[in-house]
């Protein structure tokens, strides 16, 4: 590296007895898009949190613009032009775009806001009035405002943590163009943190790879490095699996008939949706987020009760009945929102592990802690979950381990029907693989599976049939082997041939 704008050397950081970062080096060069690749829990986010002053490293040195920084804090980091976009948005929903962009004291476009806003709106293809409240924005638009916020706060080093996780394929392509413009015209130094190979190859010029808290490869030239090389670095091994679709399909286990739903804001989010899944079958639901998938899942699982139409689980009509009626018929739901819906924050790992079937550990009013502990130990062993202290709050687990706990909890009972919403979002390649295997394994055991996903690869890989949802309607239903990425993509965008 010629002339690094930021140098981090020998950075180490532990949480409890888990070593998150172990002697990590990282260099950034001005005006370049860097990729930071690694599995979940590899230490990417921890490293970024150290660069943005949120965590203090236990060891190591940080040099910014040739100046040795002893103790970085968020204020100081922002004064050195380091800005970060976190996976969870840090916008104030009730404020306008303008207020969010100009909120920080380091904002540099107080006076010529309109000019700057229109310039960067062009770069980001954001077609919105700056007085629009953020709450009215789509997820993709919020992401753009988050990145714009860094520019407005005069950040020259932009750390983007999984920015494409919430974007549609079209939005991802658009983001790539925007970031290239920023790096070339504004000389912004950009770090793209991701575990998606395709994006890191598309977006970046140089790649860093982390594994288990260590930097296993530095400054690889994106043009020359191969996919297999990157996978080997990231995983230590290459896995390619294709699932055969000669699975035996049995009797119908889940049926939704003519479902329509109008939400509290009086928006018709579902219109006459019908579907049917047989035992041993995976039905994939493609669609951009917010086209009715969450509502459909919540209706099938009994969380939403005031809908039109009927839901039939294993020949039993459960329309109008609640969550527990579905549990009795052995239906499992893996919700999109892990911490907050699937898992209760502030509650112990042990308590969270029992949410699906805690009543099986009950004897009258008594809840047996031993039964709960034994079941949890089964989960921990079977799904190789890292949980240092089961009585500690769930938030002491890493994101990947939380999802393993949630998946394990929902699948261990060998359910008849599984509703899985975005089951692999934000997970690393090996975790994705193991979750795909779990889903196929359940399919072969005779579960009827509704797989809601935005990841087309995943849908094509796992599904027997695909439906595409757009504006609350099923716009296509097709056997996976007859489907192409093009016709599914067009349907997702609402274009009918």
């Amino acid at each position, binding site marked *: 590296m010629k002339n690094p704008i930021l140098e981090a050397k020998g950075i180490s950081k532990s*949480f409890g007895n888990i070593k998150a970062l172990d002697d990590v080096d990282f260099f950034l060069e001005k005006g370049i898009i860097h990729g930071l690749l690694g599995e979940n829990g590899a230490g990417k986010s921890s490293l970024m949190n150290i660069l943005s002053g949120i965590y203090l490293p236990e060891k190591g040195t940080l040099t910014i613009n040739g100046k040795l920084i002893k103790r970085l804090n968020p204020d100081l980091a922002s004064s050195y032009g380091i800005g970060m976009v976190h996976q969870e948005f840090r916008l104030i929903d009730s404020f306008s775009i303008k207020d969010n962009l100009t909120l920080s004291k380091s904002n540099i476009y107080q006076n010529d806001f309109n000019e700057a806003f229109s310039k960067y709106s062009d770069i980001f293809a954001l077609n919105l009035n700056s007085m629009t409240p953020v709450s009215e924005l789509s997820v993709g638009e919020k992401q753009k405002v988050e990145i714009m916020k860094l520019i407005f706060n005069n950040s020259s080093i932009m750390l983007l943590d999984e920015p494409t996780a919430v974007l549609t394929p079209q939005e991802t392509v658009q983001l790539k163009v925007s970031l290239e413009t920023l790096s070339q015209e504004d000389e912004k130094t950009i770090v793209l943190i991701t575990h998606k190979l395709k994006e890191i190859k598309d977006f970046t010029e140089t790649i860093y790879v982390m594994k288990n808290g260590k930097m296993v490869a530095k400054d690889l030239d994106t043009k020359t490095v191969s996919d297999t090389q990157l996978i080997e670095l990231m995983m230590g091994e290459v896995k390619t699996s294709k699932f055969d679709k000669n699975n035996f399909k049995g009797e119908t286990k889940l049926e939704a008939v003519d479902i329509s739903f109008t939400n509290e804001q009086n928006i018709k989010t579902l219109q006459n949706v019908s579907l049917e899944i047989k035992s041993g079958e995976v039905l994939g639901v493609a669609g951009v987020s917010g086209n009715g998938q969450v509502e459909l899942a919540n209706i099938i699982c009994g969380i939403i009760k005031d809908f039109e139409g009927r839901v039939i689980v294993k020949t039993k009509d459960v329309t109008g009945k609640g*969550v527990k009626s579905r549990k009795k018929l052995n239906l499992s739901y893996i919700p999109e929102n892990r911490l907050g819906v*699937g898992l*209760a924050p*502030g509650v112990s790992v042990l308590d969270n592990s029992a949410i699906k079937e805690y009543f099986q550990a009950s004897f009258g009013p008594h*809840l047996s802690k031993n039964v709960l502990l034994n079941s949890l130990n089964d989960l921990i062993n079977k799904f190789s979950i890292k949980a240092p*202290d089961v009585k500690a709050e769930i938030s*002491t687990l890493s994101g990947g381990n939380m999802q393993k706990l949630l998946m394990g909890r929902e699948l261990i009972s060998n359910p008849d029907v599984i509703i899985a919403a975005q089951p692999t979002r934000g997970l690393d390649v090996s975790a994705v693989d193991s979750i795909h295997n779990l889903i196929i394994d359940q399919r072969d055991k005779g579960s009827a599976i509704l797989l809601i996903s935005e990841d087309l690869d995943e849908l094509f890989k796992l599904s027997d049939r695909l439906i595409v949802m757009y504006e609350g309607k099923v716009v296509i239903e097709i056997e996976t082997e007859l489907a192409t990425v093009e016709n599914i993509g067009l349907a997702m965008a609402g274009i009918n041939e």
Partner: protein
Amino acid sequence: MNKFILSKKLYRNELATFYSFLIGFLIAIIVGSIILLIQSKNPFDVFSLMLKLSIGSVNSLSNSLNKAIPLILAGLGIAIINSVKLWNIGAEGQIFFGAIALNFVYINTSIENSYLYIFLLLASGFIGGSVCILLPALSKVLFGVNEIITTLLTNYIVFGLTIYLINGVWKDPNSLNFPAAAYVSESVYLPTVFGKLSSGFLICILFTLIAYYIKDKSVFGYEMRIAGGSALTAIYAGISAKQKAFIAMLIGGGFAGLAGAIELLSQTHRVSTGISQGFGYTAIIVAAITGMRPLGIFLVGSLFGALAIGGSVIQTIGVSSYISEIIQATTLFGALIAQFFFSYEIKRVEDD
């Protein structure tokens, strides 16, 4: 220049709450000593007298434990309600209402067997406490009204009702114009077990175990924890968070109502303003210090009972009884600060 930042600890010592209490108590003793020194009293003399007269003999110990009963019971009720992350500030009113309900049943019924009668009267007290919190509980689950405000306001309503009753319809003609209801018959007094210790203390032990069981060992306690952790997770799990909150509030109110009933049957023997001397408020301190743990509430409640007795006896040597209230309040203050330091760490950051 140095700057300080706060960061939350991922792992917290399991005994943190206990250590926090000890630290808080130590701070309270130091603060109390300073106040005594300002008044030119020897703190060592005052505290040893307090100790001697609160736990030094069977009689004084039983006085202390009798005093602890309402603190513990009301504290347990607060802790049960807090399992769903709700705050009951209305234990004081529920204590009075428990006594009022008891007296109402007493006036309108008569049972030969005094044990059966005592049981019925205690049950009336429990139900009275539940009735007292019914309005806050309903407005919480139906309309989402903040329970802190409504339970607090109920205290004023119940206190007004008490004043009305003991000056009006229930006023004892033989009380020489002192506002109080008539005494209950001696046959329904709670018997003492040893010294002056009321059998109410045994009930208190039983209910401590019940509260511990509900919170830590029962399905209901588990469902309350999930509902308290995340309303959305509760919906997802098929747990009705509102139903849990409602039941928790009724049970918690009942615990405080039972405290009022025991106080009436063992101490005052009639409805008067003396049924509670702020027990319902001190119980909040007790519950908060222990991090809402039933066994801790039992221990800290007992200690606070002793402090109250100790505080009242040192008046004989010219020291205000407020010293024990200062110690109670400072213990909470110190313990909360200590709990904060067990949960967060302060890091020094150098600015350049």
